[in-house]
């Protein structure tokens, strides 16, 4: 029998829905995702580590569980909120339901709430913390405890530890090895690795905390600072190591979290976006060519346009809110983008960014 489950937000709003997925309670930052397809990516994206994700599209789980479409090896999010999950999915590759997946991954699910109302609250108030439990009172307790704990750990243990890998891993290039690339894993997705290896790059993934020297000693042709879920300002250690990677003069490409980290390493300031960019439909304008691309995002922060990093100019901007979406450095062979230049299995329309990275590496050789 379905049991009631409550969501309580920081501002006191309460939503009553029904429970699915794993047993238990959950607390985290509540964010919404506007993609109409791609829930498997969302569920396994390290970018959502620790967060409670609300899907704005009401019908979730329609094509079931397709392991091949996961972009991380597990579910990173804390809890999952949908209006309706599909009990009888339909796709020839489906191996189960979203419910079964959440159960297996230990992720709490809430469904049958007015997800649009929740989204509008998050839009108006900005991202908030929230908690799920079987009574509003209990959810309050969980939320209070979470906020306290969150405050307590602020500035301490690196949260990136939650999503990064434990050991160095080398993935061979598909076909002939044209380049050897080091990827700093702050919550890197399978898709990024796949796109690199398909371009003939041998990829070595390093845990986030790896000292710059340990990376540089492998003498990669280039370094990629990957995407990741957290506030890059939180971890001074990571910024410091990133600075040392910059000093090496190796070609560098930053993506999402990596973009912000690189900018911080070069003295930029950051701003927190009110409710973040999470979805598949944000228009970003490539300023040199005046072309607009539709790109995937999963980010809650951006580089402050008034405090760009040293010797850098903006290459991309968000067409809607004009936030900085890409940077090109003039004194080092480095560039970065806020969005994720990969979309599922389709060819990426922003694949030219990888061409640019390749060119840097070729020039450096």
């Amino acid at each position: 029998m379905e049991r009631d489950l409550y969501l309580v937000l920081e501002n006191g709003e309460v939503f009553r829905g029904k429970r699915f997925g794993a047993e238990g309670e959950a607390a985290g930052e509540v964010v919404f995702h506007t993609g109409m397809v791609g829930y498997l990516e969302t569920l396994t994206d390290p970018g959502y580590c620790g967060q409670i994700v609300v899907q704005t599209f009401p019908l979730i789980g329609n094509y079931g569980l397709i392991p091949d479409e996961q972009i991380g090896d597990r579910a990173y999010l804390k809890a999952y909120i949908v209006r309706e999950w599909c009990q009888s999915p339909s796709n020839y590759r489906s191996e189960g339901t979203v419910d079964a997946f959440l159960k297996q991954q230990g992720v709490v699910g809430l469904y049958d709430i007015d997800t649009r109302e929740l989204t509008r609250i998050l839009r108006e108030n900005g991202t908030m913390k929230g908690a799920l439990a079987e009574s509003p009172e209990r959810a309050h307790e969980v939320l209070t405890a979470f906020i306290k704990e969150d405050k307590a750990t602020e500035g301490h243990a690196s949260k990136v530890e939650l999503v990064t890998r434990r050991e160095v891993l080398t993935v061979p290039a598909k076909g002939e090895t044209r380049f050897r690339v080091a990827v700093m894993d702050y919550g890197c997705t399978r898709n990024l690795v796949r796109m690199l290896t398909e371009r003939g790059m041998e990829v070595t993934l390093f845990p986030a905390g790896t000292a710059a020297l340990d990376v540089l000693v492998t003498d990669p042709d280039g370094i990629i600072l990957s995407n990741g879920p957290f506030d890059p300002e939180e971890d001074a250690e990571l910024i410091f190591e990133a600075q040392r990677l910059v000093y090496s003069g190796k070609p560098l490409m930053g993506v999402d979290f990596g973009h912000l980290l690189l900018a911080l390493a070069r003295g930029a300031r950051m701003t927190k976006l009110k409710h973040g960019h999470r979805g598949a439909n944000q228009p970003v304008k490539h300023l040199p060519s005046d072309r607009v691309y539709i790109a995937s995002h999963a980010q809650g922060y951006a580089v402050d346009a008034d405090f760009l990093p040293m010797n850098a100019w903006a290459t991309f901007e968000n067409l809607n809110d004009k936030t900085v979406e890409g940077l090109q450095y003039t004194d080092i062979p480095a560039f970065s983008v806020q969005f994720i230049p990969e979309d599922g299995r389709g060819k990426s329309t922003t694949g030219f960014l990888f061409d640019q990275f390749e060119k840097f590496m070729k020039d450096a050789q």
Partner: protein
Amino acid sequence: MPRNKDLKKVMVIGSGPIVIGQAAEFDYAGTQACRALQEEGLEVVLINSNPATIMTDEAMADHIYIEPLTLETVKRIIEKERPDSILSTLGGQTGLTLSMQLAREGFLESHGVKLLGAKPETIDKAEDRQSFKDTMESIHQPCIPSKVVTTLEDGLAYAEEIGYPVIIRPAFTLGGTGGGICHNVEEMKEICANGLRLSPITQVLVEKCISGWKEIEFEVIRDAKGNSITVCSMENVDPVGVHTGDSIVLAPAVTLSHDEYQMLRTAALDIVEALGVEGGCNVQFALYPESREYAVIEVNPRVSRSSALASKATGYPIAKVATKIAIGYTLDEIRNAVTGTTYACFEPTIDYAVVKLPKWPFDKFVYAKRTLGTQMKATGEVMAIGTSFEQAMMKAVRGAEIGLDTMNLPKLAELSDEKLIARMEDCDDERIFIIYEALKRGVSVERVHEITMIDEWFLYKFLNLIDYERRLQAEPMTEELYHEGKKLGYPDKAIARLSSKSLPRHENAVFKMVDTCAAEYAAQTPYFYSTYDEENEAEEFIRNRHDSKPTVIVFGSGPIRIGQGIEFDYASVHCVWALKKAGFQVVIVNNNPETVSTDFDTADRLYFEPLTPEDVMNIIRVEKPYGVVVAFGGQTAIKLTKFLDEQGVRILGTQADSIDAAEDRERFDALLEKLKIKRPQGHTVFTTEEALRAAHDLDFPVLMRPSYVLGGQNMIIAFSDEDIVEYMQIILSHNIENPVLIDKYYMGTEIEVDAICDGEDILIPGIMEHIERAGVHSGDSIAVYPAWNLSDNLRNKIVNHSRKLALALKTMGLVNIQYVVFENEVYVIEVNPRSSRTIPYISKVSGVPMVDLATRCMLGEKLSNMGYGTGLYRRPKYMCVKVPVFSFEKLIDLDVQLGPEMKSTGEVLGIGRTLEEALYKGLVAAGYKMKKSGGIFITVRDQDKGEIAEIAEKYYQMGFRLYATRGTAELLEDEGMPVMVVPKIYKNAKYNSMTLVESGEINYIISSSKKGRLPQRDSVKIRRKAVEHAIPCLTSLDTANALADSLMSHYSQENTELVELKDMKD
């Protein structure tokens, strides 16, 4: 890129008359285009032969020509107006084809006209079979494998290569005769050989059969800089094999995984890039359900029905954006009108499900073949928005006005399981209900999927509904159970009926906003749909507006069907405008995605909802209107009157009681008696016996119809007992509970009046006279305005009758009255105290803004203060002829003989100084080739024989060769005309009326028969054959006579006057 500053004067070509496959969506697109151009300060020249459109309204363009959409006419208008550019992609296939012809001939270049919207290269790449294939190959996009072969051996070899099943399509056979699907070598040997034999050039196309694959569409927009986005994905519930216009469609696509979705999305963007489209484009894919294999089915590099649907489904105005792109803007420069803060260069994301359900004409065309296939048959569609598929589907079904409020089609209960499953094999308009019934009886999802290839996802959703209906019967009624039903989309009535229990409470719906962005940005667009949730955004929206103006709700006309077309959308939109001008906040409710009324910026607020009592009450509860308007939304809105009246809702204009008085036969008869106005005598009957008795009492011929009709639904003229028995059988089998009306039928001149009444006086902008005598439905007759051969005496009588009727019925607003003049006596046929089909064209040609004045009357203003006078309005200096247009080639087995049952789907207008000129232009606009020589085949029923000789003589004098069946031939020979006698079909296999029609020697056919209707009858077969061969088939002697007169006149496409709409006023 900013706007191209060289552009000053742009010509827009409309899509012409409404036909199946090209309907109101192009009025919506064209209207958006004209507005977008005017917004930019451009001078707009518009040509469209369809007078019922909003785009041909005075305010929409600077120069409006309601002229035939032919190459000659368009050229002459270009020479006259000298536009610097022409917009090709907003007028459907008609507009596109004309533009391309003009471009290819070099006409545009030589006249310094720039082609906007689509380049000929793009169109070639998209429309030319080979060039499309080559283009797709060059960008590695798979097409459906196919090959032209001329021998069976080659056919077999190719089929082996691509694998069975394959489709054989013989070249140059009409309607694909002789083709078929082959599943193996044996079938291939038979069908391919047969196809080769039937093809006049011994050639067939062997194509891989992909029926059963998923059909997925993408709407894409690209600008000149190469920015491109997908607006919306759509998934057809019916897999490949059923025309997308006849498919139930869900937006967005749901059964595609992210990989599959991105694969097709990327393909769509690549295709649009390769074609170099600048504007909107529709790309259709077939996706094999069990692999990543797919094929590009079709690409339409212009706005389309699908783009209208995508616009309404997402809130993204594709036609408007496409127009801005055509004049030079790029996507990153165009604002998203919905949010006002973001740009058109983004991909809309939605947080609801959208279902489109087609509306088919089979309720009227009892004998037409209902099977759905590659030829579209729907006349219109409804769209429904819900937070679940179930809810949207249920809304669509009850909004389609097919007598259902759930998925249960009662008559299917009688079918045996075997029959039910057998019927599932053929796809027709009822298949979705058959599937539902089968699932209800326990047929497994797998089995249904196997037979229909409909994705299991949809079938499981139907099971959810079935499961709920079962629980309604089995479980006690609780608030929880009731609420669940509301969420699934069940109206209160249905829950009560299915559960046989009283409801625990009534839950009001709440409204959510359609905002293109799933609430990510605050939107300003007042576009709402209902669901059952907590938060009510409409209420919040109204509250925040702080608008003290009173609110009026206008109810629209629902899906387009025969008899209730775009004319009612025209009236609804004009009513909205008039109310706004009068200082009201105006709300529109409608569920037709093709229309201007459902554009989010037509009214102050739009509710995309079914027009049923419970649905509209939900809106009334939130809007708390001062009053509501039902008079402009056709029968759809009128049907709500009684209910709204009972609910105490103020109805503006004519009251429920008056509508009832006009529709209730006894009350109406009593009224006529009182007013001393005559009508054909009649009786009301319920059984066949009563019907026979009544007919004998009145004398044949008699007119039969069910009471409460629209568009002559199920109406016939009976000449014999046999006709009566057949008709009553059909009616009784439809479980129609209302009585059947039998009237004396007078073969006189039919007169139609549209008037405006303020309760004290009336204004008649015009009296129309029909070319065809009464008996041909007014919607199917050629109507002439002003009436050209009424005596002053009769005219006065008609004006007086009209005034008396309008006042006696307490009409406030529009009233449409039909008369028949027989032996110098005026009889009333019917009075409709509401807007009619003829309002748009009469408004345009008379210069009297009828809907505007009628709306003001409803609000209490007096005609005498409006500046147009009262009584009969002054005679215009032009004659106008409205010619109906049919979609017969799309409706197999439908008898084309005109009768009291309306069959036309659209209309065109001819305007001229004389009746002959107007008629000539009208006929040309309707598609008549106006050939002045060749053969004419005449075969008429006995009652027509008295007059046929005189008409035949005219054709004979012009030099036509006469052919006729024996009876008719003897008659003509007696009059001294040489005639070739043609044997009936069964008499001679080699040479008969059928082979004659096929021979190509015939340019016109005059055919009438006493019976018709049944597709097996020879006369019907001949007429169908004529349709296949595109030979004009005249089934009324009056039409034949008028055509002859027009052919004999000296008019040609070179010498008619080009009439600008505003010229008609002075």
